[in-house]
């Protein structure tokens, strides 16, 4: 372990294209990890994420050998390898078995989530949060860290047990809908139920209503976001608002704007939250009314589809209803699992590690608590076991901070390894097709100057001022009516969709989280528009045609 970490960091900057080993290529996934990844996060990916991915996939019958994560210059690359069938006959047999297994898992997705997965997730999160590394002694701390990682491993195993049937459920519904309705898109029928993310969005909307009721509109309008906490503190209504915000944070404070342990949660740093509330206060966006309208819209779209199918044989109508129910639950689950595992799990992980960092700093093993992120898990273990390593570790921390800063300026290639990524081998199944529409499509040639092409993600045409944002912090400068242009949008960003006129991302496909959320917020969206954050400048006027997947820079 020690040696492999050395290899990653000592020969910095390492050539991007040097093969890691003889296997297939490792792919850069800017939708999930667009930016540099800290050493501790890297350990987490290998010891928790990779293991959970592999176990979860195996449990739903996928012949995965391993999911492996590798790093180059602090950027994450990954690959999944699958068992190669010995013959075409075996490939056919395995393909048929997998389809049957997937179908079975799609059928019981809701039941398993409600009776099995969600209760277990809540239990794991509660246990995890009860761990208190700050008060643990050295030996206890080592055990706590291992125990904590074990809990996270189970959390991510559940994640990857859910993901295949969830994607497959959405994919098979979209395929059936397109077959029945001349290639049309059935997303309008899938408006999710009241997920925790929707509830968080509504609670955010309520905060904005409170701010208006408390007469704080002018204060929000005239105060820069960074000065808002102090300005609110100075008045009675401002303090009343702050108390409401703390109540919100107690329930919904475990959001981070990136999947990275280094990124503070809203609870630790509410400035992003404040900026979003500010946007809501200054716009007339009403989260509750929007949700009601969206549910009504989905019900109407469903009734229209049912009316159009009335003349079809019962078997078709039954198939449609079955797949619709499964896909609707899958769309809900895409939000819900993300809230519980990707968000709560990761944010709880951060708080846990920050507390461990405080402990180590208090013991004089680290100069400051967040130095912990600059060490691998093995190094943290070694440090706890042998306090005399503190000096050597401290040097690594400063070297790596410097390297990370430098790495941020780099642009990673789409893959590393001996050959470019192939189309997924083996028989086509709904999961493979679904994953093809979840991840970023290949770059597309634009048809005109000042035009960018991506994947159509949410229909509608709108023109507005572009706001290019590489982080949620930058995104909070978004004004109502602006077009949000980002590499990727994390779940914490989605409340911004309430005030954005449209969204453009460089990554993801029509089944990606961003696309699903844009449809839920009913704003036009183009995803997978390669190079959008470099081609488009903040302040330019752009026209987004979400139905065609085209962005035009107007001026």
């Amino acid at each position, binding site marked *: 372990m020690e040696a492999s970490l050395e290899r990653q960091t000592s020969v910095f900057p390492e050539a991007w294209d040097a093969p890691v080993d003889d296997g297939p290529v490792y792919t850069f996934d800017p939708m999930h990890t667009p930016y540099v990844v800290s050493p501790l996060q890297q350990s987490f990916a290998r010891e928790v994420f990779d293991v959970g991915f592999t176990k979860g996939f195996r449990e739903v019958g996928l012949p995965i050998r391993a999911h492996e994560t590798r790093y180059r210059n602090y950027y994450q690359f990954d690959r999944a390898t699958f068992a190669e069938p010995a013959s075409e006959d075996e490939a056919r047999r395995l393909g048929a078995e997998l389809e049957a297994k997937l179908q079975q898992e799609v059928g019981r997705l809701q039941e398993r989530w409600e009776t099995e997965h969600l209760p277990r997730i809540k239990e794991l999160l509660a246990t995890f949060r009860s761990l208190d590394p700050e008060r643990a002694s050295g030996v206890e701390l080592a055990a706590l860290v291992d125990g904590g990682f074990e809990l996270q491993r189970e959390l991510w195993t559940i994640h990857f047990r859910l993901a295949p049937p969830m994607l497959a459920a959405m994919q*098979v519904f979209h*395929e*059936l809908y397109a*077959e*029945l309705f001349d290639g049309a898109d059935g997303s309008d029928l899938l408006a999710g139920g009241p997920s925790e993310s929707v509830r968080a969005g509504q609670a955010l909307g309520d905060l904005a209503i409170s701010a208006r009721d408390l007469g704080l509109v002018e204060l929000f309008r005239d105060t820069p976001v960074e000065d808002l906490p102090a300005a609110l503190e100075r008045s009675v209504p401002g303090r009343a608002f702050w108390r409401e915000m703390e109540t919100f944070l107690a329930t919904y404070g475990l959001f981070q704007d990136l999947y990275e342990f280094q990124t503070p949660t809203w609870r630790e740093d509410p400035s992003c939250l404040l900026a979003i509330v500010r946007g809501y206060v200054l716009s007339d966006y009403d989260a509750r009314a929007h949700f009601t309208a969206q549910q009504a819209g989905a019900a109407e779209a469903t009734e229209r589809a049912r009316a*159009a199918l009335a*003349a*079809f*044989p*019962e*078997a*078709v109508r039954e*198939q449609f209803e079955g797949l619709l129910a499964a896909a609707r639950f899958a769309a809900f689950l895409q939000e819900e699992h993300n809230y519980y595992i990707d968000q709560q799990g990761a944010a709880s992980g951060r708080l846990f590690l920050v507390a461990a960092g405080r402990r180590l700093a208090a013991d004089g093993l680290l100069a400051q608590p967040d130095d912990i992120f600059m060490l691998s898990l093995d190094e943290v273990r070694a440090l706890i076991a042998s306090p005399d390593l503190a000096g050597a570790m401290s040097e690594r921390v400063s070297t790596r901070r410097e390297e990370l800063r430098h790495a941020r300026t780099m642009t990673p290639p789409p893959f590393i390894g001996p050959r470019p990524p192939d189309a997924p081998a083996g028989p086509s199944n709904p999961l493979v097709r679904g994953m093809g529409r979840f991840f970023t499509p290949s770059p597309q040639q634009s048809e005109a100057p000042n035009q960018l092409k991506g994947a159509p993600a949410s229909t509608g045409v709108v023109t507005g001022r572009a706001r290019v944002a590489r982080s949620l912090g930058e995104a909070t400068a978004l004004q109502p009516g602006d077009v949000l242009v980002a590499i990727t949008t994390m779940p914490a960003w989605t409340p911004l969709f309430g005030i954005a006129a449209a969204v453009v991302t460089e990554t993801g496909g029509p089944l990606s989280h961003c696309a699903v959320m844009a449809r839920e917020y009913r704003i036009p969206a183009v995803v997978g528009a390669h190079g959008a954050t470099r081609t488009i400048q903040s302040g330019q006027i752009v026209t987004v045609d979400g139905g065609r997947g085209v962005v035009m820079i107007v001026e």
Partner: protein
Amino acid sequence: MEAVSTQERHVRWLDRGVVSRADVGGKGASLSQLAALGAPVPPAFALTTDAYRAFAAAHGVPARATDVDDNDLTALRARMLAAPVPGDVAAMIAEGHGTLRARAAREVALAVRSSATAEDSAEFSFAGLHDTILDVRTPAALDAAIKRCWASLWSDRAVAYRRTGGLATDEAAIAVVIQQLVHSDVSFIVFTRDPVGNCPGHLVIDASWGLGEAVVSGLVVPDHIIVGPEDEIAEYTVGDKQVMVIPGASPGDGAREVAVPRVLRTAPALSEARVREIAALARSLSLRLGYDADLEGGIQDGRLYLFQARPITTLGASL
């Protein structure tokens, strides 16, 4: 008395006693027989051969295949389609349509089927020679459909069939069956004796999604089921059901052909319980009809219906 006889001359209900082939054609006669035996047939009336004759007389339509030159058939049919239906016949059609509408629980769609006097007899099947129009909903569409059926007596193929069958000098007349359309989820044809294999005691079912046209006109490779003497499935060969015929999206559209969703193309259209139900019904009807039958039917909302029965005509030929 006069009014009643006019009505009887032009229109006969097919579920009020057995009616003769001469009056209502082979299809109409067998439907009246099925109804009399208590078989699940949808409500229907027939426009009699007399109604056809009244129309033919009013517009100078010839009576025999020998009366017309093959080259004149196209013009003859066009003339028939454009000609008005005599007033008393039209009134009877409207009344029958109204009665069907009153008997139906929901908006009524109709299947309008030709029923020639010589067809569906033990000697001649005429299968598929004369027109059938599905999903007729408006009076104007019904008027047009009836004339299409009448004109199909003079289709090139029908005339050729009569000539080669030695029926050229017979007076040709045709009745029209106007039947409440069953919105079949699955349609089937059942032969109470295997017309090809001649396996004693076995019957054969062909089934596919949607209205019967897909199976009857060979638009699909249907599921092919061989049923053994105990009504057990001896062999179920799932077909490749690429298309289906379904009712139109709105009145006036008529039935339409659409693609079957991929997941259902190679899925069996009939459950084992359905196969047994169809086989048992077909056997018992064949016994009571007194001949080996070829029955067309469908399933709507879980209920089985039969639309026509005719003797199997190809048995002798295959021996």
